[in-house]
C-alpha cells in the first residue's frame, strides 16, 4: 500500500482514459471480453458470467478493432449544461460482434439530419480526443469516431 501511495504522489499529471475499456497504450484502443463458451463479446474489462449463454467463463480479453460501421445515430440538440450541441451520438458496430456508443465527430450534424441515409452503414474509425481535465490535472481522453475511407 505504502509503495502504491508513493508511486501515486510521484506521478505527474498525464492522460487518463474516460472509461476502463479504453486503453491509451501502445496506441488508443478499446478492449472487450469474449465468452469462451458462446463467443459473445462484451465491451467490458471483466465479467462474472455471460449474459448471452449463462456460462461462467473463462473470459478472454480481446483488443477491439479501431474501425467499424455506423448502425444508427441521433442528432442531439438538448443536453446537460456544458455539452456543446448539436452533436451526433451513434451506435457503431465493430467487426468483433460488439457495438459501441459514442460521438460521431468530423461530420456536419445538420447535414446528417437532412440526409440520414448518408450515415447508415458509414465506415468510421476510432479517434482519441481530450474532452476535459480532472481534479489532479490529468487530461481525460475519450474514444470517439470519425468517418474513414473504408
Amino acid at each position, binding site marked *: 500500500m505504502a509503495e502504491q501511495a508513493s508511486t501515486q504522489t510521484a506521478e505527474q499529471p498525464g492522460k487518463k482514459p474516460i472509461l476502463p475499456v479504453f486503453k491509451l497504450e501502445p496506441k488508443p484502443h478499446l478492449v472487450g471480453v469474449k465468452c469462451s463458451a458462446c463467443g459473445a463479446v462484451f465491451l467490458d474489462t471483466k465479467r462474472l458470467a455471460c449474459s448471452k449463454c449463462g456460462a461462467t467463463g473463462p473470459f478472454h480479453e480481446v483488443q477491439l478493432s479501431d474501425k467499424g460501421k455506423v448502425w444508427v445515430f441521433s442528432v442531439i440538440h438538448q443536453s446537460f449544461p456544458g455539452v456543446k450541441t448539436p452533436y451526433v451520438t451513434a451506435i457503431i458496430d465493430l467487426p468483433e460482434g460488439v457495438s459501441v456508443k459514442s460521438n460521431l465527430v468530423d461530420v456536419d450534424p445538420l447535414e446528417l439530419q437532412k440526409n440520414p441515409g448518408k450515415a447508415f452503414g458509414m465506415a468510421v474509425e476510432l479517434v482519441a480526443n481530450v474532452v476535459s481535465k*480532472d481534479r489532479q490535472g490529468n487530461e481525460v481522453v475519450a474514444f470517439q469516431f470519425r468517418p474513414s475511407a473504408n
Partner: protein
Amino acid sequence: MRNVYVLGTGMIRFGRYPDKSVPELGAEAALIALKDASVAIKDVELFACGNLYQANAMVGQRILQQVGQTGIPVINVSNACATGSTAFREAYMAVASGMYDVTMAVGVEQMGKQGLLGGGGGGSDPAYSTEGRVGSGLMPAVFGQAGMEHMRKYGTTLEHFAKISVKSHKHATKNPFSQYQNEVTLEDVMNARVVAFPNTLYMCCPTGDGAAAAILVSEDKLKQFAGGRKRARVAASVLTSDPYTDRDLTLPDVSTLTRRAVQKAYETAGLGPKDVSLTELHDCFATAELVHYENLGLCGDGEAGKFIDEGGGKHPDLGGKAPVNVSGGLLSKGHPLGATGVANICEVVWHLTGDDRAKQRQVPNAKVGMAHVIGLGSACTIHLLTV
C-alpha cells in the same frame, strides 16, 4: 389462477403539484378508487405502491398513514417507467394466486420540472462524465435512435413520427385528466425545435406529477361489492425483462421484450391483435409509439408508416381504426413515471365499462383493451383487460 377483476379506479389529472407531497397525491388517487369500488380501506388486504424517485422512502406506508393504517402487507415497487404497472401486477398476482381477495395498487410520482432523464456517469469527478463525450445515454437519444432504426430498415420519414404527435394531441383535447389538452398541427410538430433527431419537442413526453389507483378483487368479492355494475377482468398480466440481443447493452432494445410480452399476453387471454378495441401504449416519444405498432401486432413489420397514413391509431370518431392512446398518451396526458402504468389501465377500464370519466372520448363497443408499458433498463408489462 383465479379470475381477477378491477373493481374501482382513481386518477388525478396529471400536471404539476408543487404544493403537495407524494403520499398526498397517492392518497388522493387511492381514495377515489376506494369510493369508485364502494369498498373501505379496511376491506383491502394488500397494497402495492409504485413510485420511483422516493423508492427508498416507504411511499406505500406513508399513503396508508393518510388513508388508513390497517396493518396490511405493503409492497413498494420500483421498475423504471414500468413501476406502476408492476405494482398493479403485484396486486393482481396476490388475488390470482388465491392468497388475497381485495388488493390495491397505486402508482404515484412527483417529478417537478426536472430535465432530461438518464445519462450521467463519471462518479465523483465530472471530468469523467460520459454524457455528450462518448455518445448520449439520455432517453431522447435512446428513443431517437429507436426511430432511426425504423427509418434505416423501412424508409420511415420524419412526417410519420410527427403525425403520431398530431394524433395524440388531438385525442388529449377530449381528456380532462391530461396534462396538456392542446392541439398541434403537422407544421407545429415538424418545425418545433429538435430535442434528439428525429424527435422534436412535441414528439417528447413532458415531465410532471400524478397518481392513479386500482382496486382488484376475486370473483366472489366482485359479486359482493360490484352491485351489478360492469367491471373489467384482467385477462392477462405479463412482465418481461430484456433478453440478450446483439446491441441491447449499447442501445436498449425496446422491441424484443415487448414482442415476447404481448405474445404471451395474447396466448394467455386466447386473444389476438384483431380483438383489441383500444390500446394504451408507452409513447414516451413519438418514435416509440411507431415501433410499438409493429411490436404489439397492430400492423405488420415494416408497415407502421402505412398504418399511420391510413388512419391507424386514430380514434374512430376521427375516422381512424385500431385506436391507440385515446387518452392523449404520454405525449399529452403526461408521464409521471410511477403513475403511468396504473393510469393507462384506468383509461382502458373506463372505455370497457362505459365509465363517465371517458365519456367524451369513449371508444364505441370496447370489449378488449391493452395497456403496454416499457421501463428502460429494461422491463415491459402488458395487461389485457376484457368485459
